[in-house]
């Protein structure tokens, strides 16, 4: 299943993203570039990840990366609604976002 990204502006420099599909090594490079761009160009980013049906550790790594990146560049980064699959990865690695 391809990746679908719905982008919604939510006021000044604020972005809401809804991502659905497979978040795996096959698409992770492009997705990271896209999300990093979004993060840089906004002050607050909110992601809805409930539609992710397939995910792997590279997705986990990218989300952790984004969180760290946001903190380092003083931006807000929120994830709302993680899919079960993502949740199971985060709980195995004992990480939160």
């Amino acid at each position, binding site marked *: 299943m391809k990746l679908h990204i719905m982008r919604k502006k939510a006021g000044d420099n604020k972005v809401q993203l809804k991502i659905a599909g497979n978040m795996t*090594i096959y698409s992770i*490079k492009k997705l*990271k570039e896209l999300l990093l761009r979004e993060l840089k160009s906004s002050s607050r980013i909110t992601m809805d990840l409930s539609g992710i049906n397939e995910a*792997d*550790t590279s997705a986990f790594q990218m989300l952790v990366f984004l969180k*760290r990146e946001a903190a380092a560049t003083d931006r807000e980064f929120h994830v709302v609604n993680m899919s079960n699959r993502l949740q199971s990865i985060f709980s*195995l*690695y004992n990480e939160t976002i």
Partner: protein
Amino acid sequence: MAGNQSDKNFKAVYFTESRELLDAMEVSLLALEKNNSDEESINSIFRAVHTIKGNSGMFGFARIGEFTHNLENMLSSVRTGDLQITDEMSVLLLEAHDFISIMLDYYEGADDDAALDPDMESLFLNLAGRIDEFLPGGNDEEHDKISSTETYAPAEVSIEGDNELYVNNDCWHISLRFGKNVFKDGLDPYSFISYLGEKGEIKNIKTVYEDMPFGDKMMADQCYLGFEMDFKSSMSKREIEDVFDFVINDCELRILPPNTGIADYVTLIEDLPETTMRIGDMLKEIGSLTGAELKMALELQARKSESITKSPEELLVGNILLEEKMVQKPVLEAALEKQTLIKKREESNRKLIRIDAEKLDHLINLIGELVITGSNVKQISESEEKIGLVKSVTDMAKLIEEIRDSTMGIRMVQIGETFKRFERVVRDLSREKGKQVELEIYGGDTELDKTLIDKISDPLIHLIRNAVDHGIGSPDERKRAGKSAIGTVTLNAFHETGSIIIEVRDDGNGLDRDKIYVKALELGLVKPDQNPSDYDIYQYIFLPGFSTASEISNISGRGVGMDVVKKNIESLRGTVVLESEKGEGTTIRIHLPLTLAIIDGFMVKLADSYYVLPLDMVTECTEVSREELDSKEGGNYMNLRGDVLPFMKMREFFMETGDEPEKQKVIVVEYSRKKVGLVVDDLIGEFQTVIKPLGKIFSSLQWISGSTILGTGEVAYILDIPKLIKSAQIMEYNEL
């Protein structure tokens, strides 16, 4: 046991044997891990532990006895089905196995009642505690206490010995750093770690991504992750490593065992790419180390690195000072102690040298070749008519013969020592069963190949146990039957024409023929209209799965079954028969070949082929004219100095055609107290030879046990006389 020397010899036997038992135990443990309901493995482990326990008690190694006693209790519950073998338990068993081996090494050089050194003592307590947990009534609370490390105050850092520090944590610490290409190689760390989670409990895990670059430099398809985790499981280090087998080239894996020394953590902290503080915090966070332990580790590490940053001279001095203060002292002491141990051991071993069996086998092979070449030279020299040469060659042949004999002698061991061990078996079992049994030993000086003795020991134990458990009745029963209250089990070993015979005899009740017959009927082994002889009926008990209900008891369950006894003996090219008389007792007779690779043979010629017979079965040779043989009516019997001698025409047996010589030779062989004459064309003479096994395709040729190559390059066959006689009997029977 008279005198110190024999005492020492006995102890040497104890150590060697215990090690052998441990080896067997290990094999079974490994088999058990593959199939955790394998009864044979459980029994063999039990047997090993049980025997070590018994022997340890006998020689006064109390601590080993104590330890194996605990272990035996646990195994006993397994055998009764009260406990199930779990992965955790099989790991514990392996650890216990290793520990027994450590104790054996230790006590071999120390006094029997010496105290264990502190390291071993703590391991002892650790293992014994874990064994106790399995036993009914094991203390679960204590178990919990150990696992919750955070509740331990700094004072709880256990200090063993002088300076050796141990971490108080019963979890494995696993440190993982994945390589950059893991994702690209199609591997997902998630699958490995979640699999690990199924195999035990990941008590705590921490993701490490210190090395991950920021911003655009971070490549999302590369992996920058690492994990530090606390893992509670009964798996072995090897098994944990196996979990990561697929990804092993793509990751760095470091595993620290539960309750390891702080020094190991120091090494870990140094090895990991992240900074010391970061790692230290993480170790504390996931609970691998307590704050106090961490502090100690960091101090230790700081002192170490301090010495490294100093100039070389300072480093040397610093090192020495530091080491002296910190670690070296116990190490030095241990080294000194070890040296004295080695010295002691050397003294006690002065008369025994342990040789790698492989080296010995190699030597024996070489000598085998030398024997063949020697025979060749002899044959050639005899055709040359140079007096000097013949004499030299004869002398050389004599020397080769001596070399051969003494080399084979190296492998030969008196069976007496093995027999004597069984006294304990008989004593223990008879007490347990409320019986009075004495073991009588004959022929303890009979020499057997060492490997043969090793392999025959287990079947013998089983037979002896059977004899005590089933054969001999209780004192009351025996008195009623008009026998003395004390039963006797007799072990007897002796040589008999080319084989060694070991007898296990009891003067007990004998086998119940009718019961076995009924069971055999039930199993369809005999048809109701058949009427096999008693002897034949008794042999049924060697069949797999053959057991009459009354024979099952906790003792017979302990050992191998009779079918395994038979299988073991047959794998040594031996045979086993059972004779029994109701009310009189049972005798089990094991025939073993001398299993020497080199035999003294007697060569004969038949048509164009050469055959070799084992010389020690040949009793005499005689000549007989063809008329005399042919004129016999009513069967193949001839007159040997007034005795009737059955004979066999080898020409007929091998279906040789062609002209028979006018005068044929008869070679008289004896086996199992039976004499048979073999009619051959010509006698060549004595011949030393090496048995070369024939290929598998000839394995159905039962009456040929091997071949050998003659000086002329021709092949001679080595006849297996017992089987030859047997097949001749069968053929004759079929003709009738």
